[in-house]
């Protein structure tokens, strides 16, 4: 079976959200079609031609800014280049305001089998504050359109600890989310990045104690509603974990397409330069740059820190036995669990996992 994945980055957004520091910009006229051509050309020129892809993920930015025909061209390029017969998951990210019936139907017919939609909150006031272009009602409508188009695997993103959000506001967001019953939910605690409108205007994160309560409330409610808290920020119904994202957390390989995309192949973490104009001018034939060559130490470190992001945890054998008293203490304090020769973190442990993981990182 194939173990290779592909990530495609769409570097466009109609409007940049106030909290976002990802690579994206509003598309210039004609830029989208020029970009799609370049992206298809990059895919077709892949040195991995002929290999089977297990998952494909189109992220951004706002992939739903690409038209139905753009997607048709994209999928054609993928099909011409790679073997997609064993592709178990093909995800496209979207924003609620750009989901239409025909778009959804076309994507479904092209073989896209999973949609990840950024909802963030069901409070219209909070959505405006975040700089989102949709309302709560539009998000619910988009969800129905996707369902009606045939999508049986939908993920929704929610944000917690928004400015001025209190516990009851988060609780009602979670309730509305649960009532829609998507297969997968990601919940992120708002982080204020320096070079974002929020960061530049002095918006601050909620205090630690509030963030903590919100995180634990999310854990309790979603777990009770039948979702497995399988990664620090991710929840899934039985059998609906994000297969593509799990590739990241288990050290799997993935190819990168589109400006700003990251890949990992043959021990090298690489990135496509974040320059859309140059990407288009060279028709996608740009040289990626090496971000890191993963040596034996780095591989060990990654396995530990990525593995502990997941509820599955890591084999005990990966941890220096001198650290056992520390693990014991973590378990006594309810931060970790030792079972079946594995060590994993609890929801409380996830909350302080940077501190735990940095203590468990191997020595160079």
């Amino acid at each position, binding site marked *: 079976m194939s173990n290779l994945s592909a*990530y495609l980055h769409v570097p466009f957004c109609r409007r940049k959200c106030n909290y976002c520091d990802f690579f994206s910009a509003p598309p210039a006229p004609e830029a989208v079609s020029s970009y799609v051509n370049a992206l298809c050309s990059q895919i077709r020129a892949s040195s991995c031609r002929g290999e089977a892809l297990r998952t494909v993920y189109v992220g951004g930015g706002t992939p739903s800014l690409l038209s139905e025909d753009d997607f048709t061209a994209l999928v054609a390029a993928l099909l011409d280049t790679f073997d997609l017969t064993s592709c178990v998951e093909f995800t496209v990210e979207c924003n609620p305001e750009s989901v239409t019936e025909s778009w959804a139907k076309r994507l479904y017919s092209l073989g896209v089998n999973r949609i990840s939609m950024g909802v963030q909150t069901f409070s219209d006031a909070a959505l405006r504050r975040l700089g989102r272009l949709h309302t709560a009602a539009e998000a619910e409508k988009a969800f129905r359109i996707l369902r009606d188009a045939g999508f049986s695997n939908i993920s929704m993103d929610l944000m917690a600890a928004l400015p001025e959000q209190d516990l009851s506001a988060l609780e009602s967001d979670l309730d509305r989310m649960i009532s829609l019953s998507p297969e997968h939910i990601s919940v*992120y*605690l708002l*982080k204020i990045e320096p070079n974002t409108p929020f960061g530049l205007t002095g918006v601050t994160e909620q205090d*630690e*104690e509030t*963030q*903590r309560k919100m*995180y634990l409330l999310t854990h309790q409610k979603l777990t009770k509603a039948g979702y497995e808290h399988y990664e*620090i*920020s991710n929840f899934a119904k039985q059998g609906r974990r994000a297969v593509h*994202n799990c590739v*990241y*957390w288990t050290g799997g390989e*993935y190819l*990168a397409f589109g400006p*700003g*995309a*990251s*890949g*990992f192949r043959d021990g090298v*973490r690489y*990135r496509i330069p974040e320059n859309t104009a140059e990407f288009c001018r060279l028709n996608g034939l740009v040289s990626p740059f090496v*971000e*890191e060559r993963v040596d034996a130490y*780095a591989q060990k*470190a*990654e396995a530990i*820190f*990525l593995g502990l*992001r997941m509820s599955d945890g890591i084999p005990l054998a990966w941890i220096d036995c001198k650290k056992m*008293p*520390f693990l014991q*203490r*973590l378990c006594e*304090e309810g*931060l970790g669990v030792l079972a079946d020769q594995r060590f994993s973190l609890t929801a409380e442990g*996830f*909350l*302080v*996992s*940077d*501190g*735990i*993981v*940095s*203590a468990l*990182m191997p020595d160079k």
Partner: protein
Amino acid sequence: MYDISKIRNFSIIAHIDHGKSTLADRLLELTETVEKREMEDQVLDNMDLEKEHGITIKARAVKLEYKAKDGETYILNLIDTPGHVDFHYEVSRALAACEGALLVVDASQGIEAQTLANTYLALDGDLEILPVINKIDLPAADPDRVIREIEDTIGIPAEDAPRISAKNGINIQDVLEQVVRDVPAPEGDPDAPLKALIFDSYYDAYRGVVVYVRLKDGSLSKGQKIRMMSTGAEFDVVELGYLSPFGCRPAETLRAGEVGYIMASIKTVSDTRVGDTVTLAENPASEPLPGYKKANPMVYCGIYCADGSRYEDLRDALDKLSLNDASMTYEPEHSIALGFGFRCGFLGLLHMEIMQERIEREFNLDLITTAPGVVYRLTMADGSTVYIDNPTNYPSPGSIVEAEEPIVKTDIIAPSDFVGTVMELCKERRGVFKNMEYIDASRVDLHYDMPLNEIIYDFFDTLKARTRGYASLDYEFSRYVKSDLVKMDILLNGEVVDALSFIVPAERAYARGRKLTEKLKENIPRQLFEVPIQAAIGSKIIARETVRAMRKDVLAKCYGGDITRKKKLLEKQKEGKKRMRQLGTIEVPQEAFMAVLKLDE
């Protein structure tokens, strides 16, 4: 031409900031030993640390040639001395190589406690004291008052003292004339068996130990074999010569009365003891020169490397530094909390701080030091007497019959407006008032007996702060006095941290325990687990604080493009932890061990 009657060996004694180094610079300039354009401010203070502190730590020597008004050319050897209270030993070394000393006094501030202490040291050594009134151009200058003060307090004539401004180069030549006229020429016989006093030395990575000597009798030439009289070790002189501000100027021969350096491929530091006498292997002197009064360390602390693997480097640093500062003692010790390190003894708190900084800067080591303590004398149940310089070794109370702590005779000179303030402070610090003298209408000299333990906790800083910087302090060991002492332990997460234990008078225990636990709470960062901090005497807990556990420490997102960056962040976090001491499952930053040093009660 060698002519012993034209040699003058002198040093300068002064209080910090009274302008000693600036005067030294002017003397170098005027004798054209240093060209004006080469003149870096304060040439003699050539350690960075000295420039920053504005004080001279190590004695330095330099040879000047001066054509006096009588038409003759004189050789003036200026031997620099430190001014601070902690450096008596250094001062006494420098003075032993001289026949005279310039006593520099600030025309506005007058005599200070340390000036007095060093002047008495010079008088003890039968040196000619030549007063110099500096900073006469300051608006507040009152040279007449200061001259009266010198005559009244020290009892030496000062009417003819040069009135100068070292900073602005006023009347500097008067100082040189005074040196030529009043400092006695050295006495000594260049043909007698060699007797040379080692008054300083340092380690040069390429040439081995370089010793600074004052020849009292005899002559020494390149190629001769020398013998150290206290150890009997013998070496061939590879090079010798005179000292300039820019290093060594080689010569063929050094003769009685002269000051210079010797290099003899000396590798081991312990072979060249400051205060020892150098003689010739053939035709040795029959008796060594009298050595210096050995200064005994009064303040002790533990010194450890932040990076435990650099223990050997620390030993090396201590070996090298002790070469030119024999007043520092060190012995290996082991702490459960801090690993392998050294118990070091110093003459005082400033001495301790200076040495720590020198180790850190000159040897590029990160140090952790434990709270300074004094040496306690205990009479045990079996009748024996033990001296304890490390709280860890303090015996259980049941086995002690009597505990005594060191008391120092303390002189504090302060403006009379601050008498009340100073008395209050001394009382807080368990001082016993002896008497008080008026130096003049506006300044008093207060005499106290104080426990040394009180002085090493921030006393000097507090004194300065409460007297707006006007008070000066000097102290010397007096005697041991019976005291009600207890050993206080600090527990982190229920475990005693040996490096934080200290001895405290019983009456202070509660206050100090509370203060210390609070201070530790500020200095220990929140971590994964709650950290209880307790202060205990024996098994009795007298104070408690808690560092709450970390509540949130996680970056929510980590996808394909975040892995490298995220891994680096975690590695950085791990490195940060490395700088902390791991005590069980608790991480204690280095600063926490130091925090106990500054406890303003």
